[in-house]
């Protein structure tokens, strides 16, 4: 029974240009995505070994020097983007999909579906994804694919919770109740009415998941699990070159920086997209 005061118009007149940090993050994200998409095509010889020129420091020929097998570190970085990024994208998308399949009905219907889904999520949520992945991929000896499947299953409870909570919150809003009073089917209400309103949270969460998956997968390959030895994956390259910190420190630190920068950039881009989508609801 409160009088609705004039709500502040949420920064509509503020310039829409993203800040410097976001621009930087967008550039890095784009570069990483391009490298993942076209890297192996542009640099077919990145894996070529040349034991004569092993472990040289940065120079005009090799900007970041070479690793112990004489491979160019910069080329390895570009080529290594694909395994690192593709896996993380699959994890983020897969867990988002499961999150929707379970979270949408749980949040909309409530009742026993919700109860079962939430207990399942509680159970899985208490598991540290990376540890389980280490144990399972290590013991089962499965490769990259198994690691991704494990991650999808361990990430999905988080998405389920996010989707379910967002739907649950929207469900009680009058606009949804009004839609239920007008013969619209439940899938239509959930997908066409509720989803656009929860999209900011869900999409933002997917970006965050991507960053976490990137870190987790590269951690796995750092420990020598998931990817094949000698492959150009960032985590693997880092692990293989960390004993040579003295001769060419860049061989190990460059892939480390690549992981940090990509993960941080994607988080920042995710936050920004979240904000932009959120503002759409306030736009006229």
């Amino acid at each position, binding site marked *: 029974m409160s009088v609705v005061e004039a709500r502040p118009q949420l920064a509509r007149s503020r310039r829409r240009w993203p800040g410097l940090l976001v621009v930087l993050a967008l550039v890095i994200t784009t570069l990483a995505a391009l490298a993942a998409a076209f890297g192996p095509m542009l640099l077919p010889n990145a894996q070529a070994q040349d034991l004569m020129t092993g472990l040289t420091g940065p120079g005009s020929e090799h900007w970041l020097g070479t690793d112990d097998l004489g491979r160019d570190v910069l080329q390895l970085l570009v080529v290594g983007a694909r395994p690192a990024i593709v896996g993380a994208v699959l994890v983020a998308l897969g867990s988002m999909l499961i999150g929707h399949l379970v979270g949408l009905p749980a949040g909309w219907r409530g009742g026993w579906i919700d109860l079962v889904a939430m207990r399942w999520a509680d159970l899985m949520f208490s598991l540290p994804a990376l540890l389980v992945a280490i144990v399972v991929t*290590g013991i089962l000896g499965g490769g990259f694919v198994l690691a991704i499947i494990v991650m999808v299953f361990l990430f999905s409870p988080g998405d389920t919770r996010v989707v379910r909570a967002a739907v649950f919150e929207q469900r009680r809003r009058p606009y949804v109740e009004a839609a239920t009073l007008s013969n619209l089917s439940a899938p239509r209400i959930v997908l066409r009415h509720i989803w656009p309103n929860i999209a900011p949270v869900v999409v933002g969460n997917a970006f965050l998941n991507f960053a976490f998956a990137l870190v987790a997968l590269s951690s796995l390959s750092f420990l020598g699990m998931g990817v094949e030895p000698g492959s150009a994956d960032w985590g693997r390259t880092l692990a293989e070159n960390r004993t040579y910190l003295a001769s060419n420190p860049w061989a190990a630190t460059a892939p480390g*920086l690549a992981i940090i920068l990509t993960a941080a950039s994607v988080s920042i881009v995710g936050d920004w997209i979240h904000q932009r989508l959120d503002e759409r609801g306030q736009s006229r």
Partner: protein
Amino acid sequence: MREWGRFLLVRLAGTVVVVLILSIGIFSLVYLSPGSVEQTLLGNRPVTDATRAAVRAQYHLDDPLLTQYLRWFGDAIRGDLGTSIRTGGDVVSMVGNRLPLTLAVTLYGGLLAVLVGVPLGILAAVRRGRLLDRLVVAGSVAGLSAPPFALGLLLLMVFAVRLDWFPVYGSGEGFLDSLWHLTLPAVALGLAGAGLLVRFTRSSLVRELGQDYVTFARARGLSDRQVLGYAVRNSLVPVLTAAGLILTSTLVATVLVEVVFALPGLGSLLVDSVTFKDVPVVQAIALLLTVAIAAINILVDASYLIADPRLRTGGRA
């Protein structure tokens, strides 16, 4: 009072169920390992009819699975987790030897995370929108997204190799020496937690500072310190929910950090055992971590109840 007692009991029962379910998964690792069970348990020893029979007898492999599980779980509760396949040593004492170091690094890192993360989060919230805030937020995103092994490596390169301020490897002798040795690993661990804490503290405090009760407190003449005290105290309640997340992620990060800094802790034991498919050791560590994480979550719930009287008395906001 009775209501929250019951809530905690229900929560405890739920946790016990979770631990039981997970223990089944952990037990079945022996069977999930590729190759026959006997081969897994024999490790590098030759598989002959005689050794196979010996293993089957030693591990009661001819009993029904349920009996095997119950025996394993019962032994585990009594502190017997079998012998290591790789070394032939007692698993419990192996784990026990490694535990103190891991606990030390984890607590050291966690402490750093709280001491850095919470104050920075408060600072960023109070100075919201200013340059300092943006720097802190950007830093927290980087800390949050940095894999601990990469961070550890960068720290090693800068502070141990280049600047030579800290030792490259080892855990040190005595308290001060250990502290010195464990500082870089703890920083590598703590940064991710600090990033999370900055994020949670900042957003929670920003929300509290916008509440009516803060304006009203200022309007009725409370000092800046009192007003900030109100908001900070109340903003820490949601931060508590993040505490469990931070502790578990710190535990996970410990594994990687121990490998990077070559620290003989539980984490490096786990990685070695996984690599050698030393299943009993892996089971022991997995069980220990499962219980630890479950205990942490229960503690977080309990502290949440203490921090928010609305939950304690079953009142509505």
